[in-house]
């Protein structure tokens, strides 16, 4: 157990020998055509099963299971809470005072939503709540959720999650997102947790508001008329929306994808062995929130690559046991074009992290481009029946 705790941000390093690591690295870094241990293409995800609305006691829930048996359940609960107005917002409210007619506009301007209204907690078996891995993961996912509107200052405050949680000036929703990983994390659990959270948020419904304006909120008892937190594209849901700030139905919760680079190659949804030899591990959060349906990059975070902690191999030229047994010309150190380090081919050296700019920009491009991986993932998730 203490062994697990030490593996702070990256998952546990599998017990692979330097020779195995080197073999893996070589096959994954083959120019243009990486060979993955499980035969997937570089952008292919592992097969998964997904279902939504599995827990009647929550506002929205989802379960995703990967074929290797790792499963996650996410439950979203919403509570109404009184908004505590800060001095700053009070001041801006006074400024917006002269125009009380424009109710919708002044409401959203006064209370644009707050990041702390979304709370996220992750339970991973074998880890405590305050261990590094759950805390880091939940913050990584929460910041992209909340940040999805941080930049969207101009017109559609209601389009983002923070703005959506505003009921009126004095009341707001508080969203609790609880993520349960049901099995030991076999690979770095981020993609699984992120996809499950996305699905749960898609299926989240809030009761329909009956009160208007600044009244104390009062909701419709009928759960059948409840509205989706992220409005769906079906025409019935987008019924009562003022024309000025149309709540776009194409806004989707963000998805965080795990991407690794090995040599010049970019590999999506890596399994544990692949992460162990990665040069750089990136968590890229994307969302769809523009009219044209383009994807938007929300955040990129680097994840400590576990390859740093692996044991290096010893080249024959430096191995005392092999002294004189091989001709010294056998292994000549060459300069690795990617990392800029001297390496002997076939001998594993722990990666020091860091990746070329061109590789990182290529990663982002692969995610964001039209018909790229990001679009594919979002469409795949959209296809899951949300009943």
């Amino acid at each position: 157990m203490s062994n697990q705790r030490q593996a702070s941000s990256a998952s546990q390093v599998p017990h692979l020998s330097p020779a195995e690591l080197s073999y893996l690295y070589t096959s994954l870094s083959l120019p243009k055509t990486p060979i993955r241990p499980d035969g997937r293409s570089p952008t292919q995800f592992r097969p998964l099963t997904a279902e939504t609305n599995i827990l009647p006691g929550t506002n929205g829930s989802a379960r995703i299971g990967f074929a290797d048996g790792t499963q996650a359940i996410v439950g979203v609960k919403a509570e109404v809470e009184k908004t505590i107005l800060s001095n700053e917002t009070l001041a801006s409210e006074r400024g917006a005072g002269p125009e009380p007619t424009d109710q919708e506009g002044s409401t959203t301007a006064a209370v644009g939503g707050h990041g702390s209204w979304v709370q996220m907690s992750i339970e991973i078996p074998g880890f405590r709540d305050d261990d590094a891995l759950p805390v880091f993961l939940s913050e990584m996912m929460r910041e992209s959720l909340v940040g999805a509107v941080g930049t969207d200052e101009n017109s559609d405050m209601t389009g983002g999650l923070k703005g959506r949680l505003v009921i009126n000036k004095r009341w707001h929703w508080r969203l609790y997102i609880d993520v349960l990983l049901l099995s030991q994390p076999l690979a770095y659990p981020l993609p699984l947790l992120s996809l499950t959270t996305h699905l749960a948020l898609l299926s989240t419904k809030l009761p329909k508001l009956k009160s208007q304006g600044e009244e104390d909120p009062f909701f419709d008892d009928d759960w059948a008329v409840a509205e989706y937190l992220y409005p769906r594209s079906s025409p019935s849901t987008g019924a009562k929306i003022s024309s000025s700030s149309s709540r776009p139905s194409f806004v989707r919760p963000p998805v965080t994808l795990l991407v690794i680079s090995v040599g010049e190659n970019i590999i999506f949804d890596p399994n544990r062995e692949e992460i162990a030899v990665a040069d750089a591990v990136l968590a890229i959060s994307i969302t769809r929130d523009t009219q044209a349906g383009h994807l938007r990059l929300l955040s990129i975070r680097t994840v400590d690559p576990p390859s740093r902690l692996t044991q290096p191999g010893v080249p024959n030229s430096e191995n005392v046991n092999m002294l004189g047994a091989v001709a010294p010309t056998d292994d000549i150190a060459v300069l690795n074009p990617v990392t800029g380090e001297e390496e002997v081919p076939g001998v594993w050296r722990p990666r020091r992290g860091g990746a070329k700019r061109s590789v990182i920009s290529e990663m982002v491009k692969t995610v964001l481009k039209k018909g790229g991986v990001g679009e594919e993932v979002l469409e795949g998730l959209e296809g899951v029946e949300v009943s």
Partner: protein
Amino acid sequence: MPLDTSTTYPLTKLRLDGRRWNELRLIQAQISTNPASSGSSFFSMGNTSIMCSVHGPAEGRRGDASGSAGGAGAIVDVDVNVAGFAGVDRKRRAGGSDRQSSRIATTLRSAFQSHLHTYLYPHSTISIHVSVLSVDGSLLAAAINACTLALVDAGIPMPGLLTSCTAGMSGSASTPQDPRNNELDPLLDLSLPEEQELPVLTVGTTNSVPVGENNMDTDEEEMKVAVVTMDSKLHCTYVETMLAVGIDGCSQIRELLEGVIKGSSRA
């Protein structure tokens, strides 16, 4: 809406959710739900639903703490996690675990430590992980049933299925039972509103599967009470009635679980 079981029940003889006194809630059970563990199960009684996974028997990881204790047999290690979204209101927890889940974990550990044939696995640990997905009463009983299913799925030998159920009385039952004018009925399988208001008793029973010569001449299968817990106050004259009802519920659940286990091996 005030819940007043004690006044409505005598009139209708129907409980808040429309059940009679001796009816169980809808039970759904499944085994082998999670391929990543040695054994796993899903169990729901009404709106109480629990997922359970078992790892092991495997070599214990804690070298120093249980090095000598594990020599005789396997150690059962139970971890109960009540999800934040399980209740009606989202529960805020400070720190790792709360009192309720650690009490359930302790009860489960002592129940299964003595129930399983642990002597077959010296120097090893059987770790059970219980995730409570939604809470609606009879939590300990449901957890015991879920663990039994998962342990069966993991193939860990035990003398018989350990099943559990709750029983209560339809009133506060603080005065001695009056044999002439008995207006209180025992209730089976309490839901959360009932559990909060009425005295409740959790009972778990096991049957030992007859082996050898005795195999043929068993007309009445032998049942043993393995677990009894009760938190509420109750006059002692009622305990026998409640136990009888609870034990009857346990045997109903046992039949259901046997069906699930036998049915899944066919598929």
